[in-house]
């Protein structure tokens, strides 16, 4: 259906080509998964396939869609394109209008639009929210709406550029399931660029692995996984847990790409035993030492207004110092609110009661915390919020890093920032000093945000969904950083949906449910004891 021949592309002003010598063929109804490390060119490749969105630059080679070469001036509504940001992609303020938007653009008459939107609403179960304000939808719903309003235009090919990077893992999963259903029922062609491969890897008809603007491997998922695992690339960390866990290069067998496959294997139990033996040694080593309590919450009640139910409900929690505590829980369980209460950034006039004790200092739940102005006072808490881009106020990455800590940077002398970045494993940022923070990839933005936080030398680090938009490599770097900071005596509180990451770096894990802490244990035990709400590794190892 789509054919790309010997295509190279260089962004205008860029020194190196972003894509070089790409050739691929996509058959109708095929589900192609594009993967590769951040900056490998998968987004650029997707944009090449959608003429309306082709960026400025020099292109060689050609793209053929349905036997017709397409230039940048073409308009192809049959090719749908869905981007990362759910918020920004919604154009209008009502669901029905969002659905109608594409058709209006195509000049379809009102009667047809009425019928189509009714159809789509019925099919995607949007009838209830048909009249709703689009701002009232959640991120996952917004992405679904975007896909639905792309589908309504009768598209044959759906190009998705990291559509779940801004969603939590559960919403992402749901989105993929839904996409799968769509493919099954309509047979549309899907090209998906994604770095979170855990669930989707095994579902793809074909996986294309890209690196540095070139296609490094393509083929069936298992085949690509095999090649990658054999090659020992850093990117293997992105592969599904089952692939990595049970892979044995000597067996000559293709790695599993889904849990289903692994469970179906005849020698499943032996594999599990072998995998367990491989990891126990590592886990035993990480028994944290008791270093007192950093944050202590007692009987905290909190609500955003008088009438709605409390977000936090008689919550009491002690967080040990010098360790990493992960707080996990479903959507709306109050995780982010809990962090805000600890950080003291809840807006005034909120309804709350109880005490928060931080490093021995007690304060009330409500009311904003004033900045500590005492000279040389070490900042107690730094908080990295979910949407890290809210931290960026400067024009370039370098300015962003030094803003607010100019004295410290000046005192550190030449090369202080570079050294600091290297020490913390953020060396990648040094290449982007001259760029605008918004031009960084999701993972790099998180790095930048963390750098800003760490430069303020906090005693307690609060992280809210730090792995959002990060690829596997970045996640591992972050985990390493947390381990290092922990060793320096920093207390880390982590709120995440990403249980694998939580298990990777947390010493303790607490489950928040409807504003209450249900259990708090050593992280390894916590995830081992949980049956449903647990890591992919534990699911794989559960016999």
């Amino acid at each position, binding site marked *: 259906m789509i054919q790309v021949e010997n295509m190279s592309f260089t962004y205008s002003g860029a020194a190196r080509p972003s894509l070089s010598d790409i050739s691929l063929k996509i058959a109708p109804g095929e589900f192609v998964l594009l993967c590769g490390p951040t900056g490998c060119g998968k987004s650029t490749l997707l944009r090449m396939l959608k003429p309306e969105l082709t960026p400025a630059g020099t292109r060689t080679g050609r793209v053929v869609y349905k036997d017709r070469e397409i230039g940048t001036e073409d*308009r192809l509504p049959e090719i*749908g394109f869905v*981007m990362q940001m759910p918020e920004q992609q919604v154009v209008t303020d009502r669901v029905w209008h969002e659905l109608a938007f594409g058709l209006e653009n195509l000049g379809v008459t009102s009667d047809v639009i009425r019928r189509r939107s009714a159809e789509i609403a019925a099919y995607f179960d949007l009838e209830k929210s048909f009249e709703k304000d689009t701002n009232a939808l959640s991120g996952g719903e917004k992405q679904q709406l975007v896909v639905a309003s*792309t589908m309504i235009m009768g598209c044959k090919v759906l190009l998705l550029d990291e559509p779940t990077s801004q969603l939590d893992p559960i919403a992402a999963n749901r989105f993929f399931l839904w996409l799968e259903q769509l493919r099954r029922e309509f047979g549309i062609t899907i090209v998906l660029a994604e770095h979170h491969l855990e669930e989707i890897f095994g579902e793809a008809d074909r996986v294309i692995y890209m690196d540095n603007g070139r296609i490094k491997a393509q083929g069936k998922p298992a085949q690509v996984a095999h090649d990658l695992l054999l090659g020992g690339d850093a990117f293997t960390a992105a592969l599904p847990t089952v692939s990595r866990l049970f892979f044995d290069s000597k067996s000559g067998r293709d790695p599993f790409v889904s849990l289903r496959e692994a469970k179906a294997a005849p020698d499943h139990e032996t594999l599990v035993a072998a995998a367990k033996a491989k990891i126990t040694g590592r886990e035993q080593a990480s028994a944290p030492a008791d270093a007192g309590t950093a944050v202590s919450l007692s009987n905290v009640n909190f609500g955003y207004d008088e009438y709605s139910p409390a977000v936090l409900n008689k919550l009491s929690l002690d967080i040990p110092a010098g360790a990493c505590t992960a707080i996990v829980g479903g959507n709306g369980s109050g995780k982010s609110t809990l962090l805000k209460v600890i950080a003291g*950034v809840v807006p005034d006039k909120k309804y709350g009661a109880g005490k928060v004790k931080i490093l021995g200092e007690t304060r009330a739940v409500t009311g904003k915390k004033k900045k500590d102005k005492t000279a040389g006072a070490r900042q107690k808490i730094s908080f*990295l919020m979910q949407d890290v881009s809210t931290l960026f106020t400067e024009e370039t990455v370098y300015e962003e890093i030094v803003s607010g800590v100019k004295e410290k940077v000046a005192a550190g002398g030449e090369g202080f920032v570079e050294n600091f970045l290297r020490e913390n494993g953020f060396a990648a940022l040094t290449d982007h000093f001259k760029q605008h923070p918004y031009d960084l990839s999701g993972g790099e933005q998180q790095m930048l945000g963390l750098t800003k936080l760490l430069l303020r030398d906090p005693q307690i680090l609060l992280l809210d969904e730090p792995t959002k938009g990060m690829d596997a490599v970045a996640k591992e770097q972050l985990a390493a950083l947390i381990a290092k900071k922990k060793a320096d005596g920093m207390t880390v509180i982590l709120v995440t949906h990403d249980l694998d990451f939580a298990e990777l770096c947390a010493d303790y894990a607490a489950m928040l449910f409807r504003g209450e802490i249900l259990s708090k244990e050593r992280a390894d035990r916590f995830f081992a004891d949980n049956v449903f709400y647990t890591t992919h590794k534990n699911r794989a190892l559960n016999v």
Partner: protein
Amino acid sequence: MRVYLHSRTWFLYFIMVIVILMTFWHPILLLISLESGLLWWRILGRRLTAGHIFAALAIIGLLTVANPLISSNGATILFYLNGRAITTEALAYGFLFASVLVCTLLWCVILSDVMTTDRWLNVCGRRFWRTGLVLTMVFRFFPLFTKQWQKIREGQEALEGGSPVGLKETFRMTKRELLCMLTWSLEHGFVTADAMLARGYGAARRTFFNRENYGATSIGIALAIAAAFAAVITAAASGGLEAQIYPYVRIHMDGGFDILGFAAFFLLCHLPMISYKVIREERRMRS
């Protein structure tokens, strides 16, 4: 979608009422508009609190007192304040101005309640689709903008470990937030533009998804509104509805044209309420 009253009828209704209200500063017209405005207020399920009344009285009182301080126009001098004549007419003008303001505000609240974004789109229609599109995007963007600002503020506070202390720092913080918002808006704009392009914006001549039909009621009520408006204008043109403030306050109340004007305006204000279905529709929309 089947609607009882077309958006354009609604729009016509509000425009006519507000235009009359603001053109003829006539106490009795004001009273009529106040009465019907409060009726709408109830129908739309709003509560009239003491706060509203106090605020309205405060506005009226303040403007009544303030006007003579800036204008000495008028024939009847009450007294001199620092050599400036305080006249009855200036007081009356201030009072009337404030009353018109309060009534207009009341009607604007009702207008914003009734004229939902969908209705605005329908008012713009196919001919003014660009305006309609901009409107709908603005309606979407504003809540996003405020939400984002809140997030940025929280983010900055979280980064710095508390809210800024002192005026200077608060100012600098606000400046940074504004810059941040600017960048974010631009970024948002780029992505939205891409999303629009991706969904075929500019691919063909755009149509307008019209969800409403002109029913007999819509047309009938629209005609009645136009007729009532014409009657009010006729009454005014024939010398009725005259409330003179300068050089001295005088409300001419002589002859049938005044009665015609009042009756027409009363009818105009209450027209959509005539049908219970309209009221039910509004209530259902808000429930």
